[in-house]
């Protein structure tokens, strides 16, 4: 078994270097939590990488926040700056948005949002991917980041084991609807935390045809965007995910019925 931060009591026992590092970082209006697995020797390197990962999240928030009136994204939405004048990373993310829009069959569409193009449904996942990349680049063995309920992972909690992620029951905060083994990203969209916040690209109105939509796959930016679109689409949206290699999905209807794509990785 892996011992982590072992026994350090008030009597002054020796504190062994940990192998699990946890960190919670408030950003983007939510909490981003990290679970990082390292050997004793890698610990200080990982702590530095973790600081860089948090800085990346902060930068993404500063650039993309639609809540900050003076963020470059907000200025772009109000046509106060052009795309050419905006930080180059915005064009990169909008490119990803266009890819996600096509792959979702149009159910995820940042250009259909009221008030101008809004990449929010993809940015959080993208930023979490970037944050995790810092840890991977530093040689960390395994890590998991949860960006307010959307998770990106690599490695596993123990050698040979996959990260096990519970998908929340939409009707009860302390219940799990199912458990999946993460293939790299697990994203869930639902209206039970922040109300009906998704827009149907076909009508321009707030709408959702299921109460919870989960997409798993190798990368969180795409899983996050697809889950947002799937929440709007409901069960009919599963066909678009089915067509994507490496991505699987799971929706729960208002009647409490669950539907999945063919190979959704439900854990034992």
């Amino acid at each position, binding site marked *: 078994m892996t011992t982590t931060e072992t026994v350090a*009591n008030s009597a002054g026992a020796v504190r062994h270097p940990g192998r699990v590092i946890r960190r919670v970082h408030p950003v983007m209006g939510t909490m981003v939590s990290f679970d990082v697995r390292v050997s004793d020797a890698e610990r200080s390197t990982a702590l530095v990488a973790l600081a860089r990962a948090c800085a990346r999240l902060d930068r993404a928030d500063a650039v993309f926040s639609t809540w900050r009136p003076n963020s470059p994204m907000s200025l772009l939405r109000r046509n106060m700056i052009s795309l050419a004048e905006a930080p180059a990373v915005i064009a990169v993310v909008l490119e990803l948005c266009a890819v996600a829009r096509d792959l979702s069959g149009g159910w995820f569409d940042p250009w259909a949002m009221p008030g101008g193009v809004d990449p929010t449904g993809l940015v959080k996942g993208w930023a979490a991917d970037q944050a995790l990349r810092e840890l991977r680049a530093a040689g960390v063995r395994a890590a998991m980041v949860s960006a307010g309920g959307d998770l990106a992972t690599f490695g596993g909690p123990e050698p040979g084991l996959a990260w096990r992620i519970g998908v*929340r029951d939409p009707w009860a905060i302390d219940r799990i609807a199912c458990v999946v083994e993460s293939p790299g990203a697990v994203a869930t969209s639902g209206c039970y935390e922040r109300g009906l916040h998704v827009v149907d690209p076909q009508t321009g109105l707030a709408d959702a045809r299921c109460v919870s939509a989960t997409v798993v796959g190798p990368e969180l930016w795409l899983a996050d965007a697809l889950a947002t679109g799937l929440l709007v689409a409901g069960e009919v949206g599963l066909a678009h995910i089915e067509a994507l290699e490496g991505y699987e999905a799971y929706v729960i209807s208002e009647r409490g019925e669950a539907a999945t794509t063919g190979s959704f990785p439900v854990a034992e």
Partner: protein
Amino acid sequence: MRRAPIVLAATAAGLAAVLGFHTQKLRTSVLSGLSGVGTTPTSLPSGGGGTTTTTPGSSTTTPGSSSTTPSTSASTGTHTALGADVQYQYGELELKVTVTGGKITNVQPAIDNAFDPRSAQVNAYAEPQLESQTLQAQSANINGVSGATYTSQAYVQSLQAALDKLGIK
């Protein structure tokens, strides 16, 4: 399918790992003598070909067979231990964990100083849930929770917060 055993000793250690919280200082992290019992979550759709539809009848997890992991000390009897004194964004929380027969049976705040009335309110609501969530996470043997994006305020009430604070793995 391989399953990670639940290791309460690691859980206990995870309390110390909560150190990772931003501005907090850890004063003590005394937890030992815990051993683990893992359980099997009820799974939902097992996925065949094409799109399958099932009903999440038992949408929670049920205790099942157990896999016990060797620990540094006995797994029988009742132990109570104070966990990390955690300074987190909304206040200070020290958890008292009771272990009976190698299984967490009770989690209670021993120190609970919220920094402001709003936090006190949140804590009063969150703490009864913290216990059930912890027990739930233990039985589900999970590393994290995926769900609709919660706000910073909702975080303290979320299962993810319980996982992060208690280091359930």
